[in-house]
Structure formats: structure tokens, C-alpha cells
């Protein structure tokens, strides 16, 4: 393996050296518990407050509307479970989509077992929630709409402003899983009428194990993790101070260079997509071409299976991911690819390349070059391709 070409930034990202530097003092020097009253901890408490301010700023929220959690999954679980608990007198119906992250979908499945009614909206072939479907799904008992800001597999950016407006019109809370979008694309909770929002540190070159939930003032919310009085009694547990500080630093950097990064990543992304489409036959680009995360490439190569492709890519130092069942140990391929209408056998051959602003054009080209060889090689050993070619030649 030569150089490492990391194109799995939607899974997790490298922590920026400046972020690590900012975190370091909080391990060995400023290690005090911010809840303590002695001077030694007071500075830590102030630094946590500043971090909260920075993070609130990313989405136009107020400081006191930001709650720290242990990650995106916890935020998602909290948002759904606590809303159901807090609003049970109003109703017990939730609307979400078929392409949400498992942190939402599996929580919904659990809630269904507790008697909650969940509507899973279909999406169109690009992965977009259909506004008309959403409107039709609303009932008098609907308490929450939870639609992700951007999809983690195919990169499609949902019309959350429209969804927020509909939620508001109908007096329904709107939660959005912004784990893939926070710090990557502009979000404003007021303009978009977002009542709750989940984000995670490690998707924006910040640390793992820290996340946040935005909860609009006035939204009734129960605790999910009960215990100490941290986070204004809403989320117990000693503050993960280095995590919080690192998350805020990463967000600060992400916001400062957002425009520049979007422009750059979009260019590289589209270059990869164009070359794949031009140079490799029998492929399908997944996700919306325009309403798309700047760092996301998702493509299905027919007649081959994703895991084999990933291993061969890895042998060239290239890190990508696949919605293939074989990478997850289940039998069905990605629920997202099935939801946009792909047949199983095609969904199995998917590849997600999620780039960063450190991805160079040379790397992009190298990846496509290797990919061409790999696809050819795998097709040459694929019985599906054999059959396909025979059929063509008939």
C-alpha cells in the first residue's frame, strides 16, 4: 500500500491538528469539572460556555438552546423518545422518511413497539422527500416530523426549509438529523423553522464521542439520560470538556472556510462523477445531482458486489464505503438505495466516496483510474456480467 487516500469522510473524519491542540490543555491541565465552584474549574466552565456559543452560532441558535450529548446517535434517540414522552397528551404520531439514518429508523422501530404510530415517507429516485406526501401524512395526532438535513449515503439535501414551514403551519415540531450537514452547508434554525437538530463532532474534523442537540426554547423536552444537573437538568453526565472544546474549534474552522470548501469539494466531486460516467460503462450515479452534499459521490457499478470492490480499493490505499449488505453482515443492501428504487442486485454494487477539502485532483484521478481496473477485473469474474454479455451478443 502506497499513500493513503481517505475518501470515507462521511463515516468519520480526521481531527484537525489545530483542534487537537485546542483540546490538549483540557486533559492534563484544565481538567476540572465545570460544575465545580472553585476557581480552577470556573475557567473551564467559561470555556465550555464559549464553545456552546460558537456551536450555537453555526446554526443561528441561542446559547441556551444547545445541549451536549455523546454523539449523533444519542441526539437522534433523545429527540424522538423525549418528544414522544413530552407530547403524549397531544398525540402519538411521528412522520419520518425511509432514508433516515438507523439512529432514527431503529429508534422509530422501537417506538412503534411502544405503541407509537410512525409514517415512513417514500422518497423520489433522487432521494428527495415529496412535500405533497408529507402534507398528506399529517394527522391531528402528529407531534413530530423528523427528516434529515442531508443523507449520509447518497448526499441528497432535503428541502428542510419547506418541511419546517409545513411543520410550523401545522403546529408540529420539526427535528432534523443534521449530522452530515452541520458545518458543511449553511443551516439556520429560525429561517428553516427547525425545533430540534442533531449534530456530531467527528463529521467535521472534530473529536468522536461528542454531539449536540439543538432544542428551541419553548419546546417541552424530557431528559433521555437522567442523573446529575448538567445541561440545565436535561442531560446528565460529567461534561466531556475536551470533546466540547474540540467540537467547537472544529465548527469554528468549518464555518470560516465553508464557502471555499463547498466550492472546492463540489469541483472535485463533479470531476469524479464525470470521469466515472464517461469512462466506466453500466454505472448509475445515486442521489440528486444538484441538491447534494459537496463531498458526496455515490455510484452503483452493475454486475459487481461492493465489498470486493472496497477490498481491492483498500489494496491501493483507497478508503471508501459501500451500501452492500456484505459490509454490514445483513442480507439486504442499504435501505437508502432500495428506497430510491434500485433493485437489490444493483444496490449491492454501490460505492460511496466522501471526499474532504484535502482531497487533491491527483488523488481523485488516481481513484478513478484504479476503479476502472477494479471494476473490469470484478466484472471479468462475475457470472452476472457473463450472462449479461451473452445476452447482449445474442
Amino acid at each position: 500500500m502506497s499513500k493513503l487516500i481517505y475518501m470515507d469522510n462521511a463515516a468519520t473524519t480526521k481531527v484537525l491538528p489545530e483542534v487537537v491542540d485546542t483540546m490538549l490543555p483540557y486533559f492534563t491541565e484544565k481538567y476540572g469539572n465545570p460544575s465545580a465552584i472553585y476557581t480552577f474549574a470556573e475557567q473551564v466552565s467559561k470555556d465550555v460556555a464559549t464553545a456552546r456559543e460558537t456551536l450555537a452560532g453555526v446554526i443561528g441558535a441561542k446559547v441556551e438552546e444547545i445541549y451536549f450529548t455523546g454523539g449523533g446517535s444519542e441526539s437522534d434517540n433523545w429527540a424522538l423518545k423525549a418528544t414522544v414522552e413530552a407530547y403524549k397528551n397531544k398525540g402519538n404520531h411521528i412522520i419520518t422518511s425511509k432514508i433516515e439514518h438507523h439512529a432514527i429508523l431503529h429508534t422509530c422501530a422501537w417506538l412503534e413497539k411502544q405503541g407509537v404510530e410512525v409514517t415512513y415517507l417514500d422518497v423520489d429516485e433522487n432521494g428527495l422527500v415529496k412535500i405533497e406526501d408529507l402534507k398528506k401524512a399529517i394527522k391531528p395526532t402528529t407531534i413530530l416530523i423528523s427528516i434529515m438535513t442531508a443523507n449520509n449515503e447518497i448526499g441528497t439535501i432535503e428541502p428542510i426549509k419547506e418541511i419546517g414551514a409545513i411543520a410550523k403551519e401545522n403546529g408540529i415540531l420539526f427535528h432534523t438529523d443534521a449530522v452530515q450537514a452541520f458545518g458543511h452547508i449553511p443551516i439556520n434554525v429560525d429561517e428553516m423553522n427547525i425545533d430540534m437538530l442533531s449534530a456530531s463532532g467527528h463529521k467535521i474534523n472534530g473529536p468522536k464521542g461528542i454531539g449536540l442537540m439543538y432544542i428551541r426554547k419553548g419546546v417541552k423536552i424530557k431528559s433521555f439520560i437522567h442523573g446529575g444537573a448538567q445541561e440545565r437538568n436535561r442531560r446528565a453526565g460529567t461534561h466531556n470538556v475536551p470533546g466540547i472544546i474540540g467540537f467547537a474549534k472544529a465548527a469554528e474552522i468549518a464555518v470560516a472556510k465553508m464557502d471555499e470548501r463547498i466550492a472546492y469539494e463540489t469541483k472535485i466531486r463533479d470531476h469524479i462523477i464525470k470521469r466515472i460516467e464517461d469512462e466506466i460503462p453500466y454505472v448509475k450515479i445515486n442521489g440528486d445531482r444538484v441538491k447534494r452534499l459537496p463531498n458526496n459521490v455515490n455510484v452503483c457499478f452493475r454486475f459487481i458486489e461492493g465489498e470486493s470492490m472496497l477490498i481491492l480499493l483498500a489494496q491501493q490505499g483507497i478508503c471508501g464505503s459501500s451500501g452492500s449488505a456484505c459490509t454490514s453482515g445483513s442480507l439486504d443492501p442499504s435501505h437508502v438505495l432500495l428506497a430510491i428504487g434500485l433493485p437489490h442486485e444493483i444496490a449491492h454494487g454501490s460505492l460511496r466516496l466522501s471526499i474532504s477539502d484535502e482531497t487533491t485532483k491527483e488523488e481523485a484521478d488516481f481513484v478513478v483510474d484504479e476503479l476502472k481496473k477494479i471494476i473490469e477485473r470484478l466484472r471479468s469474474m462475475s457470472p452476472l456480467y457473463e450472462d449479461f454479455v451473452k445476452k447482449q451478443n445474442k
Partner: protein
Amino acid sequence: MYSEKVMDHFSNPRNVGEMENPSGVGTVGNAKCGDIMRMYLDIDENGVIKEAKFKTFGCGAAVATSSMATELVKGKTIQEALEVTNKAVMEALDGLPPVKVHCSLLAEEAIHAALWDYAQKNNIKIEGLKPPVNDIEELEEEEEY
């Protein structure tokens, strides 16, 4: 995740290919589940497997078990080949991760399916061999992507 043996057989799969006039050919698995294995056997008049070829659509384990299975049956009599179980294939590969055990079952099935085809063509009965559950579905004629 995979043993060195698995990685070797995946990266340098033995006996990949098709056969012009195979004594028997069997295809097992299901594109929906992401695993299809096709095995070609060339069996001589003494019932010895002279040559084996495969094509596989599937994960690393699927490819490696196909490769190993072809290696294991080569030179064996039909009866010996029937004893090449999924366990034997796995052992020869120094094991597989638990979630991948089903791939080794596929390899066993592929051998059986190819032998069944051979038996059918030659109108013979092979002791202990059951008809393959052919669960591969016709590739639907989808629109071109």
C-alpha cells in the same frame, strides 16, 4: 477481518473463468442477497475432476471460498468432491468471520450443483447428492443505467 489465506485467495483467485464444454456447471446464490457462485467442472471418464473454474459475484469471502473450493475439488473423484464441505473449505482458509459463514455454504452448494448437472447430463445417479435449490433469479431486463 479476513485471514491471510482468505486475502490471498481473494486477491489472487485460482481458477477464475468459464469453460467451453463443461462436464457440469452449477450456479447458486441469489443476486438479491449479493452472492452468486457459478462453478464449472471438467470430469474425466474415471469420474475424476480434472479441471474446475468459477465465476463469483459476491464479497471477499465469497470469492475466496469459490477459489478454495475449486482448488479442493481438483483431482478428486466425485465421491471425494462430495466430501468437500463448507467446513472443509473454511478450514482450508484458516476460518471466516462469523457473518461470512454463509458464503462457505454457497461454495459447497456450487460443487453439488455442478455435480448434479453432470449427473443429469450423463443420466447417472450420484449417491448422496440432492438436487440443488436453484434460487438464482433471471436478471431482470432493467432499463440501462
